[in-house]
Structure formats: structure tokens, C-alpha cells
């Protein structure tokens, strides 16, 4: 009889794993708690246009999820936790879209590779007090063929010739599948100013078609990119790239299926998944030979915690006590310059260039701070504020009275004249940063919600200050009348969404030892090996780059091991497309 895999989550990791398993002839059921706003994902004749579009009100109404009333999360800091505070905030805590396609319905599809350094942080840079810095169980070379395969499937635009040598030394690669799209005016200004100061600002690798690819059209640069689903399917992603392949290979997608538990037998192996169908209050059981857990680093940890049972008394696979711990978000540093001229950053792909010098480790603060090395992260150039958001930004500034609202909207210093950069910094794993179940807050299905306990390490605060000042210098060199930056530590005070980013990782980390990790190098839970974790939960460290390409590549590797064995997985992926296989 065919093996039956139940895949929890239809985002970057789940869709990728589902495509591999369905292609290998498995029976695959994909469970997604949200709705489906794509059209024709399973139509062999081709995709239809989706429901996504340039509608800012819909975004403010939590389309396509998570709705903070329906699915809140709670948050507190580690010191509040020590004082016995149950939660200090309820609402949007780093929420990701809860919908078919997951986070790739809101991404602007920036897909840099991790560096060799990201896999070898402990051995190359050494430990930092108060953080649990480790190496990954495999290195860049093991993942490289998977990066190649995922980039080809997604259709990645980039420019090898403009990529600096220091990047290629850390992430060696061949040519990109396609050239970059047209550069945005604001990014060109930053690139030119950066060059004068010695920075190699270059085209950001992105899964956005600059030419037709995989049956999808070239991007028309409409500007509703970051935060919005692509209205023409020009952006690759979990749904249009991987879920579509899974469905065409016979996988079944069930939407509005809220997983409440993974059931296990006396030996600890998974036997079934318990699911609440649309608005029904009694769960149904779906038997499974294998469960692929890919609901995001916060939600996967929540499901594992909900799955405590006789063989897993403290949550699924929690022998180490590490389940839900070492939660990382990227530490956001936002820098902005106000230019005299309008930059029309609303045209284009939200961000199209990147500064990667900020991903290199530095040691200059070592003596002063007691932190032996610092590392920022990828600095995304560009981005725009949308119009309703702009109005709310000014309303939140204490020095802008509401009576001056229209003057600010007219002169638009923080939208049309804003040259913005966001650095997404390495966030060191700390044991006290964790996900557990909130003792009393529930979601609309009546299930305990995830509680995030999170604080920044001194490393992130210092790295943010260091690079915030540098980024500000570049903005001034570009001609900004005013320039400022908003460090990670301030972001955390002001915004309960920890760190102002939606990147998350590390709650079911991979590792060789069951005493200090939850999953092995192929994502299998040490004590429940027929549960494969296929999202960024397994990342041992957060990396200094946008995570999704790596989520997909690691999921592809883990699913290859599951379907074709470890020996094949060590060689590389098998083709996903019938034509490529033939």
C-alpha cells in the first residue's frame, strides 16, 4: 500500500515537501488552516489569475490572515516571565499570513543564499556568553545542489557579475536563471552613494520573473509587492511553484483545516493528525504513516506542544527540554533618509538591491562590550510605505498634530521622499527566548494560542547601533536632507511585534544529539522519527539572510531523504518535473 503523508501547512516548507512526496508516488494530504485565494493551482492547462491585488483596505482587515482577533498570540519578555507575568501583550506577535501559500503570499520574494559562515558560526567565530551559538549539522556544500534546484524551480533573477567577491567566496554559485528586473530609482541613488563610501550594493536575488518562467509572466512592477499577494503570478512561491506541482502529482489540499494535535502510539511514533474542519468543534482524525510539520517556527512549536501524550509527556519530541526554545527573529534596524525629490518607490518590486557588507562579522566592539564578535545581516534597500500606512505613521509621531495631517501627506517625507533601508540582523539563539502555550488565551477554534517569550541579546543591540550609524551615513551621502535610524532595541520597546520582522526560526532545532536538539539533520524528530519538520523551526541559527530560499532548500533535502533515502539526499535532489526526469 502507498505511504500516506499528512503535511501540516501549505507554505514554503510544506508545499516543497508535498511536491517531492507526491512526485515519488506517495499519497499526500496537505492541511491548511486558512483559505485559498489562488485559482487553478491544480489546473494542468495553466494557472488562472488569483484574488490578490493592490487593495490596502483588505490588508488592514487582516486579509489573508492571521486575524488578530481570531488568532492572537501573546508576548512577554524573559524578565517579565521571571517575575511571573503571564503576558504583557495580546495580538499581532510576528504573525505570518495564514492562507494557502503561507508567508509567500506576503513576501517580496528576496532569496539570497545563506553563507558558509551561517552554517559554521560556532566553529568559525566562537561562543558568545548568554547565547547558544552552534554549527548546523551540515554545511553550505551539502545544501548547494538544493539551492540550485529551488532557484531553477522558483525562477530567480540576479546578476552574478555584480555580486561582490566577498559574497561569492561565502556562497559560491553559478549564473542566475534570469537577469534582474529594472532597478528602482531610489535603489540607484543608494547604490551610487554606497559606492562612493566603498560598499558594493548590488541587485538583490529575487524570485520575481524578469522574463516569463515556468508558465508565469514577467513582472509588470505594479508596486504592490511586499505585504501583498502577486496579482499576476509573476512572483514564484510556495503555492504557484511547489503546491501546484504537488497537486498536479495527485496530492490533496484541504483548506480551513486546523490541526489541534499529532497523535502518537506507545512507542512515540505518529499515528494520526487531529483536525478541526471549518467551524466544527469536534476534531476528526486523519491516519498518517508520516507527518510533515511545516506550520512556521511559532505554530509548529505550538502544535508540538499541543501534542503531548503518554510517550511525549512534555510535548512532541521534547526529551531535550529544547522544544520551543532558542526562538529567533531577525533583529530589525530601520534607517531612512528624507530626500528633497519624490522617489516613486511605489513602482517596482518593493526592494531590488541589497547591501551585504553588514553580513560580515566584526570584532571592533569586543573590548568595550564583552561581546567578542558582532554580526548584522542583510540590508534591503528601498521599499515604500503604502498610503493608509503613511497616514497612520504620521498619526503615531508625537510631533505631528492631526491638524497638520494633510501637509505631511502632501510633502510625504516618509513615503514618496523616503529612502529606506532595513537591516535584518543575525539574532543569536537564547534558551530563554521561547514559544509555549498561553495558559488562558484561545483562538477562534478554542485552542490555546502560542505565547512568545522574547528579548534581544546585547549582541543584536550593538550590531544594530553599529550598522544603523553606517546606513545613515550612506543615506546622507545620497543627498538626504534628514536621516535617522530606528535601532532594534527601540523597535522592541515600541512594537510588541518582537523585532518588527516576520522572519522566525529555531524552535525545533536540528542537531546530532537528542539531548540538545529536537530534530536530526533531515528534520526527523529524534523521538518520533516519522514526524519530519520542514520549516524554519529546524534552523540551528537564524542566519543573516531572508530565510525562505533556505527553508525550501532544507525542506527539499529532508523530503528527498524521506522519499528516496539518506544516500540520495546526500547526493542531491531528484527532478520534480516529469519533463526534466525524462
Amino acid at each position, binding site marked *: 500500500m502507498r505511504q500516506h503523508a499528512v503535511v501540516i501547512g501549505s507554505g514554503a516548507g510544506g508545499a516543497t515537501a508535498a511536491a517531492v512526496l507526491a512526485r515519488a508516488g506517495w499519497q499526500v494530504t496537505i492541511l491548511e488552516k486558512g483559505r485559498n485565494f489562488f485559482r487553478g493551482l491544480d489546473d494542468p492547462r495553466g494557472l488562472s489569475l488569483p484574488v490578490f*491585488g493592490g*487593495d490596502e*483596505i483588505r490588508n488592514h482587515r487582516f486579509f489573508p490572515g492571521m486575524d488578530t482577533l481570531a488568532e492572537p498570540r501573546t508576548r512577554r519578555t524573559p524578565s517579565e516571565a521571571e517575575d511571573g507575568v503571564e503576558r504583557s501583550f495580546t495580538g499581532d506577535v510576528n504573525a505570518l499570513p495564514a492562507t494557502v501559500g503561507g508567508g509567500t503570499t506576503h513576501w517580496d520574494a528576496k532569496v539570497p543564499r545563506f553563507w558558509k559562515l551561517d552554517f559554521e558560526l560556532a566553529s568559525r567565530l566562537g561562543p558568545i556568553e548568554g547565547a547558544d551559538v552552534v554549527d548546523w549539522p551540515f554545511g553550505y556544500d551539502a545544501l548547494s545542489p538544493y539551492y540550485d534546484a529551488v532557484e531553477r524551480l522558483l525562477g530567480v533573477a540576479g546578476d552574478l557579475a555584480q555580486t561582490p567577491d566577498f559574497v561569492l567566496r561565502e556562497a559560491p554559485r553559478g549564473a542566475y536563471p534570469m537577469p534582474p528586473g529594472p532597478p528602482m530609482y531610489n535603489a540607484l541613488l543608494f547604490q551610487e552613494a554606497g559606492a562612493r563610501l566603498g560598499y558594493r550594493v548590488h541587485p538583490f536575488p529575487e524570485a520575481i520573473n524578469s522574463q516569463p518562467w515556468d508558465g508565469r509572466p514577467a513582472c509588470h512592477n505594479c508596486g504592490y509587492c511586499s505585504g501583498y499577494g502577486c496579482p499576476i503570478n509573476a512572483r514564484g512561491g510556495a503555492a504557484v511553484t511547489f503546491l501546484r506541482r504537488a497537486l498536479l502529482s495527485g496530492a490533496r489540499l484541504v483548506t480551513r483545516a486546523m490541526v489541534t494535535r499529532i497523535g502518537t502510539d506507545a512507542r512515540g511514533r505518529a499515528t494520526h493528525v487531529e483536525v478541526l474542519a471549518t467551524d466544527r468543534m469536534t476534531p476528526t482524525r486523519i491516519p498518517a504513516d508520516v507527518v510533515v510539520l511545516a506550520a512556521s517556527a511559532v505554530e509548529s512549536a505550538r502544535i508540538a506542544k499541543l501534542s503531548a501524550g503518554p510517550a511525549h509527556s512534555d510535548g512532541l519530541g521534547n526529551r531535550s527540554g529544547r522544544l520551543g526554545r532558542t526562538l529567533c527573529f531577525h533583529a530589525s534596524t530601520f534607517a531612512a533618509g528624507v530626500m528633497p*525629490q519624490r522617489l516613486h518607490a511605489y513602482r517596482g518590486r518593493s526592494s531590488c538591491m541589497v547591501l551585504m557588507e553588514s553580513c560580515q562579522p566584526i570584532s571592533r566592539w569586543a573590548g568595550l562590550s564583552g561581546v567578542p564578535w558582532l554580526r548584522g545581516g542583510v540590508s534591503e534597500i528601498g521599499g515604500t510605505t503604502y498610503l493608509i500606512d503613511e497616514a497612520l505613521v504620521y498619526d503615531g509621531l508625537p510631533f505631528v498634530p492631526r491638524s497638520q495631517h494633510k501637509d505631511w501627506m502632501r510633502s*510625504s517625507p516618509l513615503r514618496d521622499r523616503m529612502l529606506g533601508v532595513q537591516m535584518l540582523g543575525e539574532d543569536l539563539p537564547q534558551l530563554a527566548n521561547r514559544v509555549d502555550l498561553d495558559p488562558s488565551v484561545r483562538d477562534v477554534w478554542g485552542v490555546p494560542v502560542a505565547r512568545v517569550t522574547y528579548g534581544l541579546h546585547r549582541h543584536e543591540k550593538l550590531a544594530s547601533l553599529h550598522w544603523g550609524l553606517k546606513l545613515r551615513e550612506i543615506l546622507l551621502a545620497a*543627498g538626504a536632507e534628514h536621516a535617522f535610524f530606528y535601532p532594534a532595541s527601540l523597535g522592541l520597546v515600541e512594537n510588541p511585534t518582537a523585532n518588527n520582522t516576520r522572519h522566525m526560526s529555531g524552535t525545533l532545532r536540528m542537531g546530532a544529539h537528542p539531548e540538545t536538539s529536537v530534530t536530526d539533520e533531515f528534520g526527523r524528530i529524534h523521538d518520533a522519527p516519522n514526524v519530519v519538520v520542514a520549516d524554519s523551526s529546524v534552523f540551528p541559527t537564524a542566519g543573516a539572510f531572508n530565510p525562505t530560499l533556505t527553508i525550501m532548500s532544507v525542506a527539499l533535502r529532508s523530503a528527498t531523504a524521506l522519499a528516496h533515502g539518506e544516500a540520495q539526499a546526500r547526493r542531491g535532489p531528484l527532478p520534480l518535473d516529469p519533463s526534466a526526469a525524462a
Partner: protein
Amino acid sequence: MDRRAFLRLARDLALVAWLPGEALATAVARAREGPGAFLSAAQLGTLRALCARFIPGPPDDPDPGALEADVPGYIDLMLGMFERSPVPLFAGGPFSFRDGGGKNAFAEFLELDAIDERVWRTRIEGSRGIPEREWNGPVVGLQEIYTTGLAQLERTSQRFFRRDFAELANWQAETLLRGATGDLREFLGVAFAHCAEGMYGPPEYGGNKNEVGWSYTHWPGDHQPGGYTPEQISRVDPDQTEAAARASATARARRS
């Protein structure tokens, strides 16, 4: 001196408080009377006056404001969305074809499923003691937040100035709105956020009439499926060239 320049000067000199308030009262009174989808005629009158204070239009400001955009209509329709079918919660997509072309998909609102409806009825109508709406205990709905907030605004106006909120002079309204504390202050925050949605969001939701919120802000709105040409993306717009030259000069000056 043109009017806009005068307004700026007046604001900078903090003179704006002394401008007469009759213009606004007249504008509010001119707007249509009668109940809305949810709010009564009187509540709608107060809401109009509030929106006009948040985002004023002519003659207090040279560009159209919240009344011209029918922001009160947007907020009223949001509060009364469940009186309509299909429920105007999520506009359809992907294109409105505002830049020319085919059928406007934004105008066809998406069907809600059982969970959407339960969550949004709870948010709009409140939990009203219905067990399925109290997964985290009782919820005060937006309808109650608005009726209570508007009533409090009128009470406060009467107490301090013995006049309806719509009839306050500019300095009186400014004093009241800036000085608000507690629940009233919180309500004003909620109302401002909705006011921004109605002013600057897609017109299919009932606000931003004639796209007045997009014209004075130089915002193109949903520019699809046309998108932009490489030239429009990579180059400064012709009317901005002078400002761009100033930027390079600033940068050069900083370098030297």
C-alpha cells in the same frame, strides 16, 4: 500670498486656532441628512464633523478632504456591513482596471466562510453574550465603540462649549480633540485609523470618492494590470529633476 501658503504661515504662527469655524459647520450641514447603513442621522452628523476635523477640505484646506471623499459613508458602511449582501468586507481581485480596460473585480466582494463571518460579526457587532463569539471572553464591537464614542464627543462638546460638536469654532474643536483623555482619546484613535482607510483606500469600500484621497497625495492607487515601464521605475520623474539636482549638490557639499 496664496491660500495654501497663508495656511502654512498661519499654522506656523499658531494662528490657525483663531480662524472662524463657520465654514466647517456649513459644509457639514450641507452634507446629506438621514440615517446611514448603521448610524442614525444625528450620529452621522457628529461623525461627519469629526472626519472633517481630521482631514479638512475646502475652504479650510485647498484640497478635498474627508467629506468630499465620503469618509463618513465608508465608516457607516463598515459598521453596517452585515446589512448588505454580499458583505462588503473583502473586495475581490486581482484588478479594478482603474487604469483602463476590463471589468472591475474589486467591486465583486468575496464570499465569507463561516469562520470569517463569526470573527467579523464579533468584531463589528460585539459578542453580545453569544458563546461562539466569546472564545476569549466578551468583546465590545465597533458598533458600540462608535455609538458610545460619538455620544461622548457630543457630551464633552456640550459641557465645555455648550454647542454641538459640528458647530464648534476651530480653536474649540482643536482644544477638545487635543485635550481628550481616556476612552474618548482611544475612540479618536480608532476613528482616525478608519478615517485614513476611507480617505486613502480603494473607492469600492465606499470612501475615497472620485479618488480625491489619491490625487492630492500623488498616489497612483492600484496601477494594474498596466504596471510601469523600466523608464518610469529607474528614472526620476521629469518634474522632480530640479529637486534631484539639489540632492546631488547636497551630497557633493557633504563630501567636500
